[in-house]
């Protein structure tokens, strides 16, 4: 597109609707010329010094997930209401505590600074805000929690971050368990942030800690009884900070970790004798991989531009907190759970051999949710911030000593979204097949995984449709021209209801991975709003989702239910920089 196409002084030439709305609001009163927005390709490049070079393959990842062990008891014992006298912050009461707080598992999660984290040997040891593990180490990402459906968890989350911290990051936390079906007061609502010194706008008093009641129930407990509808099971969840306005820097500093949930079907035991068990590759061969884009200054210290309205796109990718690490694997099947931890980079991933040939794998889950059927012979993973992809890859086909690489071919110039795909890509992780497994690999990937909950024709026909336009109004993010109000809901939905939400991105410049708390939804259709052409939905994205990636000038319809819990939740852009700039909406569930 030439400059002629994009500059128009009459203001009447065709333009994408988002920009038009935006211009209408801002230009009407001044003598400035009416200038139409260029497309992404004309955007002004921000030239920043690149991160200093790293030493590749100098750090090894642990061979299995770093597990957080439960504790026998919490002192003082958990209560339905906030134990303010004992130092808990002033949260709302846990609902259904009498009903669901049965045979609980207790965890202590302590958010703490590690002053000497090494991202790569080329960079000096430096502070991160990680989580204390059972081994006494503070790591970023934090330790992994293995949870089970039907076994409620109380996670007592302590904020032990340095309150006099100077620099990016704000030492209050509100930990969201993405995307578990959790009660509102335990959801990590952005306005529920706390520290010993500070209470977020939705809390009554500050505190040293907060109990998060994660009942590990499927959505639909009121509809189906018991612990809900097992077809609504989540698998690959992650906990991360949701501190209002400071989520991107806090997550970049390490306020993130894995939470994997198993049940009778996806039982986490490949030797399970139960006929119902899938027997997918199980721990230690069930391995989560977190990707985070980061930037480092000339001294090799992690940096973040708090003063940029668009954040910074990281030019280094940390894999489980390490840059260009090595993972040694046994010659057998692995389940790799790839999580895009943001803040802003999109990935186009392959696993390639030394000759750059793309290797096949089986895609089994999207956004942490098992698909109805495995998708064989997949060779790429496309994930936007907060999206997840579980794959099973069989390393037994490779001789000992084989080196494979996880590579990213996405071209991305700024935080607004992907700009294309390169031929070569860059290496994020080296995988070395270095040993025979101690026991025969009995894991498998059955023909059927987890069936999808049904949506009846009557439900589709009767579902009210709500439309949400994610746009900019006078240089501010807006949703339906409204700005985020953490204290008041923009939308009120009745508990137990279902709706069709139409998500619209009328902007010509930005991709928005939209995340809706509380329940998974289903993508019904996607359309280019300029041409009216339907965009096909690939099979891996036809399952249950909690992130809906809206490319520029698209609209999508999703079906979503709002069950079991009442109170405040949010929908927001999971490009964490957009989220921190208020591209968020509060919705409340009422009785």
């Amino acid at each position: 597109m030439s400059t002629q196409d994009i500059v128009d002084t009459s203001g009447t030439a065709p333009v994408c609707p988002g920009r038009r709305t935006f211009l209408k609001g801002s230009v009407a009163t001044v003598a400035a010329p009416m200038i139409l927005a260029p497309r992404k390709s004309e955007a002004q490049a921000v030239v920043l010094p690149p991160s200093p070079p790293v030493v590749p393959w100098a750090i090894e990842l642990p061979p299995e997930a770093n597990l957080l062990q439960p504790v026998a008891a919490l002192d003082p014992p958990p209560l339905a209401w906030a134990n303010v006298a004992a130092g808990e912050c002033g949260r709302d009461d846990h609902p259904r505590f009498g009903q669901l707080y049965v045979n609980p598992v207790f965890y202590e999660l302590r958010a703490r600074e590690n002053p000497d984290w090494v991202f790569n040997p080329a960079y000096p040891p430096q502070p991160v805000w990680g989580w204390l593990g059972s081994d006494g180490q503070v790591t970023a990402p934090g330790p992994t929690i293995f949870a089970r459906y039907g076994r409620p968890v109380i996670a007592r989350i302590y904020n032990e971050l340095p309150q006099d911290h100077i620099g990016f990051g704000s030492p209050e936390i509100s930990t969201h368990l993405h995307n578990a079906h959790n009660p509102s007061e335990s959801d990590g609502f952005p306005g529920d942030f706390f520290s010993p010194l500070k209470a977020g706008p939705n809390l009554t008093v500050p505190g040293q800690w907060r109990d998060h009641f994660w009942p590990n129930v499927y959505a639909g407990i009121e509809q189906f009884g018991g612990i809900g509808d097992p077809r609504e099971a989540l698998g690959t969840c992650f906990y991360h900070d949701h501190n209002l306005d400071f989520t991107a820097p806090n997550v970049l500093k390490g306020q993130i970790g894995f939470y994997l949930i198993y049940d009778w079907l996806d039982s986490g035991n490949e030797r399970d004798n139960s006929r119902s068990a899938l027997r997918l590759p199980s721990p230690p061969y069930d391995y989560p991989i977190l990707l985070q884009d980061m930037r480092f200054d000339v001294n090799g210290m992690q940096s973040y531009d708090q003063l940029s309205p668009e954040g910074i796109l990281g030019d280094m990718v940390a894999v489980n907190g390490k840059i260009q690490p090595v993972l040694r694997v046994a010659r057998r099947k692995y389940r790799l759970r790839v999580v895009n931890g943001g803040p802003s980079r999109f990935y186009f991933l392959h696993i390639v051999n030394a000759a750059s040939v793309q290797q096949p794998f089986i895609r089994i889950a999207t956004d942490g949710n098992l698909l109805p059927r495995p998708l064989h012979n997949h060779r790429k993973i496309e994930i936007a911030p907060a999206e997840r992809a579980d794959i099973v890859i069989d390393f037994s086909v490779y001789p000992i000593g084989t080196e494979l690489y996880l590579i990213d071919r996405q071209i991305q110039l700024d935080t607004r979204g992907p700009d294309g795909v390169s031929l070569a890509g860059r290496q994020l992780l080296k995988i070395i097949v270095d040993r025979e497994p101690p026991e025969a690999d009995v894991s498998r990937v059955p023909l059927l995984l987890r069936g999808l909950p049904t949506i009846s024709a009557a439900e589709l026909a009767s579902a009210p449709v709500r439309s949400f336009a994610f746009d900019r109004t006078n240089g501010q993010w807006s949703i339906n021209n409204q700005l985020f109000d953490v204290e008041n809901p923009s939308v009120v939905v009745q508990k137990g209801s279902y709706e069709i939400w139409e998500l619209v991105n009328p902007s010509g410049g930005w991709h928005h991975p939209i995340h809706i708390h509380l329940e998974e939804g289903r993508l019904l259709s996607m359309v280019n709003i300029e041409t009216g052409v339907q965009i096909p939905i690939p099979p891996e994205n036809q399952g249950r989702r909690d992130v809906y990636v809206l490319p520029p000038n698209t609209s999508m319809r999703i079906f979503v239910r709002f069950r079991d819990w009442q109170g405040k939740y949010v929908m927001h852009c999971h490009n964490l920089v957009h989220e921190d700039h208020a591209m968020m909406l509060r919705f409340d569930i009422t009785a």
Partner: protein
Amino acid sequence: MDTDDKMFTRRTLLAGFGVAALGALAFQRSMLDREPVPQRAPGTGRLPNPTVFTHEGKAVKFYDDLIRDKVVAISMTYAQCTATCPATMGNLIRVQDMLGERIGRDVFMYSITLFPEVDTPRVLKQYAEKFGVKPGWTFLTGAPSDIESLRFALGFYDLDPAVDAIRTQHANMIRIGNAAYDRWTMSPGLVRPELIVSTINHVDRSVVHTAHIPATA
């Protein structure tokens, strides 16, 4: 873009001053002695320290005198705006009232002009008086290149040069920070003023309850 860029040329600058009464002489000299070469350097994370001029006609160093060690709320504005800009200004007036005694003591508000070519200290003083601005809230102008550098450094820009050229759109965000702790965020200017106060409270370490609690209770 061309038309807008011309506003930065010396001729337009002088013409602008032909019709607008000048404030302090120092302000005039500072503006005219310099070629307008704004430093557009987003992403440095550092705030520049140019000499700027208050609506009282006083020359001050931006970072040293106005920002260092302070909790601040910085907006951009222009004296002639009529649309969204007064809405943001109206909001900031209410923020000023809600902050009460904290203004000028714990929290400092600044409004930097987007049109330094015409917004002299005297014009800004009239503007501030029109809105009932109290001590602790300072309006600022300066050499256009310095103001442009500040605008970029503070994050009042759009990556897209064509959108960025629409200067009036930069009057809708508020840069909020605690310079002592190097902690910065941004609030939309048109949200309820209680939410702007809440964002200020988030970075002000002396405040325990982030939500704005009306003093009348």
